[in-house]
């Protein structure tokens, strides 16, 4: 899949050229290293020590960052504003959650050898068919990618084939995630209803309640983010990436020069959905619960906000956005519990009004003068 590094003349679609990737990966791995060192090497109590809580927190941010990259891929480069990416994230999460539930085995409160607690307690006698196989790691991990991918494939096939565009597309993606949320809230669905899946113990034999596992998950998420980033990079800098941008800016024209736009859209949409699923799978063991609220339309909108805030159509911008917003959230809810929503809301308003190109826009102001990366609103 990897293409050779695209020759330098294509900096237009990727404002920093390959250097952006190098810088980004450099910073990312540096950060992973710093945190690890500060956590492991620096003794407790020292002001520089990073405790497990913080590591865990960053792990969560990283999984959000991966999700943001996935959204930026479809929105920034393909011009599809998905207000339903939370759904793919959550499905990935549930796939992982189901595996973790099966790992609990008979250590649940009821000590049932096979059934998760909530099933015992709803009086189910056996596992529903769609829970089969999730006791096997390889199967569960495959599902983490396949389940969201399949959903995206079916949904995207219908939508793109019939050329649903702009706002209409956004709203039906929203309808999709909304419907899924309602469905997962139902206890009959067999996903634990509102309580979702929780009380996880082990992942691949590692105890989820040990700090080493947390560090491991944090690093794993970092690596996953790096790989996801490289993959998206490869896509957007390839000729296919340019076809995407072409589609974003002039769909009809792209058709008339012979590209089957709907297939390109479908391909990228599915890839993005799978990345989102992966992000979800990494998120769940770190926060220790997955419940239908991850399907909530407002969450999906928030993801888009991270991307917008970081800078649309620049992958590293998406990462910055996700990091910034969620870190701000953590700080605000801690220091100003009653007023943090004001701060968050104000942040969204100000950034959209003052920094139309997001934070990344700041980083490349001069170049902006010459390069209208986004000339036309995809949803206009």
């Amino acid at each position: 899949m990897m293409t050779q590094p695209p020759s330098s003349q294509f900096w237009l679609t990727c404002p920093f050229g390959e250097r952006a990737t190098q810088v980004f990966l450099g910073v990312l791995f540096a950060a992973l290293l710093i945190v690890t060192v500060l956590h492991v090497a620096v003794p407790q109590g020292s002001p520089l020590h990073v405790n497990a809580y913080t590591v865990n927190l960053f792990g969560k941010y990283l999984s959000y960052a991966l999700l943001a990259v996935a959204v930026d891929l479809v929105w920034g480069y393909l011009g599809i504003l998905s207000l339903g990416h939370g759904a793919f994230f959550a499905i990935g999460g549930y796939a992982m959650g189901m595996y973790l539930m099966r790992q609990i085995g008979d250590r649940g409160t009821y000590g049932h050898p096979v059934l998760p607690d909530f099933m015992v307690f709803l009086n189910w006698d056996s596992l529903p068919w769609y829970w089969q196989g999730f006791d096997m790691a390889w199967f569960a991990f495959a599902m983490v990618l396949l389940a969201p991918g399949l959903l995206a494939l079916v949904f995207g096939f219908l939508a793109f084939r019939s050329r649903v565009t702009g706002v209409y597309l956004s709203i039906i993606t929203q309808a999709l995630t909304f419907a899924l949320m309602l469905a997962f809230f139902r206890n009959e669905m067999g996903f634990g209803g509102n309580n979702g899946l929780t009380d996880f113990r082990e992942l691949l034999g590692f105890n989820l309640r040990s700090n080493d596992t947390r560090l491991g998950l944090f690093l794993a998420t970092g690596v996953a983010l790096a790989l996801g980033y490289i993959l998206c990079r490869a896509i957007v800098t390839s000729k296919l990436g340019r076809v995407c941008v072409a589609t974003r800016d002039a769909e009809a024209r792209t058709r008339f020069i012979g590209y089957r736009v709907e297939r390109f859209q479908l391909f990228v949409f599915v890839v993005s959905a799978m990345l989102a699923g992966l992000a979800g799978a990494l998120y769940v063991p770190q926060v220790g619960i997955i419940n239908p609220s991850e399907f909530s339309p407002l969450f999906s909108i928030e993801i888009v906000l991270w991307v917008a805030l970081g800078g649309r159509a620049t992958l590293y911008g998406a990462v910055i956005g996700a990091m910034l917003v969620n870190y701000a959230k953590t700080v605000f809810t801690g220091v100003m519990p009653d007023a943090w929503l004001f701060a968050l809301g104000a942040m969204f308003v100000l950034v959209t009004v003052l920094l139309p190109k997001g934070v990344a826009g700041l980083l490349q102001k001069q170049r902006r003068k010459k390069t209208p990366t986004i000339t036309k609103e995809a949803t206009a």
Partner: protein
Amino acid sequence: MRRFLSLGFVCCLLLSLSLTAQAQTNVTPPDDKSAYALLEALDVDSYRDKGEAITAVLQSDDERARDWLQALLDGRLQRSDDGRFIVVLDNSGRNWPVADALTGEPLGEMSRRELDRIGINNALRNQLRSAIAVVDLYSPNVERRRTSANRLLGEVDGELLAPINELILEEDDGQVRNRLSQAVAIYRTEQGEMEGVEALTGSLHPRARVALSRAAHGDDPVVADAARNALASVEQNLKINRGVETLYFGLSLGSVLVLAAIGLAITFGVMGVINMAHGELMMLGAYTTWMMQQLLPGQPGLALVLSIPAGFLVAALVGVAIERSVIQFLKGRPLETLLATFGISLILQQLVRTGISPLNRTVITPEWMSGSLVINDALSLTINRMVVLAFALVVFAGLMLIMRRTRLGLEVRAVTQNRAMARSMGIRATRVDIMTFALGSGVAGLAGVALSQLTNVGPNLGQNYIIDSFMVVVFGGVGNLWGTLVAGLSLGVINQVLEPWAGAVLAKIIVLVFIILFIQKRPRGLFPQKGRAAEG
């Protein structure tokens, strides 16, 4: 329902009634000692004893009896620390104005600490209601007679039969007469008498049906047959009523959706602004209603009417503020409007939480909007929803007029079609934007006013409707008011038709899936916008 007019009770009742009849001629007011004893008997723990005490009060030919019973029923009959019996005149707040139960003279205010309420439970409540009903049968006031006649359906038993039959003969009000005779018929049917069944044939009243179904399982085969036929004869009729009811439910739900969405249809459809704060504008409308009711205590109706313009203004002004402060800087970037207004919605919500309270506010439903309109014994339509439905249609019609008939509407349409051209023809596009957004926001405010009569008035009010609103607008076709109307109403009906057999959750899911698939078929909604404006 159990019989509350037990044999003994009714005997004394009739006695007391005849007495009160005489009492009109020569009144001998009982000394307050005996009256005090009557009331004292009420202040006991066991509800059975209370029941008997109530009977005793009825028997006493004391003309204050009805007032006492009424006060007891409302929980306003209380006892103060010094053992006096008190009628609380108004039990809102922490200190209550009170009057002496016996003399009726006002005793100023007392606090809850000094008072002991004489509690009753639902059983006693029923007994009291029946008792008062029987008393009221003799009341000169027709309304009281009617309510008590209604009350007596299925409550009649042997001892009441004779007096009621008499009353039927004396009664001059038709309604009361036929209610009473129905009540008698129900009793007869339950006794397994043929003429009872005949009299009830064709009646839709649930009590009548209960009586018939009991008779249908009775031992006399002839009567049982007749009863069965009687029940069967109304089946069809009931089905129709059921259908009408569901349709009405659907329309009223639809009307709510339309109200919530129509403002969006303007800001979103006409201006292309994706206003995530729309729900919060509705919330403001609802809070305005609450404010008005606080300003005009005791006149909820008037307050509600006044809050229609008020709600519109408040929301419209906030809308203008939003437009000026944020949206005008996002021309031609509809997506950014989504992001910015989402931020605004967060701010507005938290503003209400910290500024007013995170708790829901009480909005009172005025008399003329509560209860339901009785079409027949099996079908009655709730009035508040009827009002909302009408309101929605009026608002829609108003918007149509503005868009079609006024200068503003013309300019708005011009600007939507071709901004540059409109400008060059001297239309001040900015002004039009402000007006349009104000209009859309104001309508959201109106929706809020209406919603305050149906659901919570709280900080989350907006969030519960914003998604549905977008669905409706998109389903109807962006920029088309008719589309919004049809979409809202039809989605409402579909939902309510599905609900009985699919359940509330599934029904909603099915509707959403339906919308998704529908958009596949018609990528531009129910009524697609024509012309260049639709391209892109």
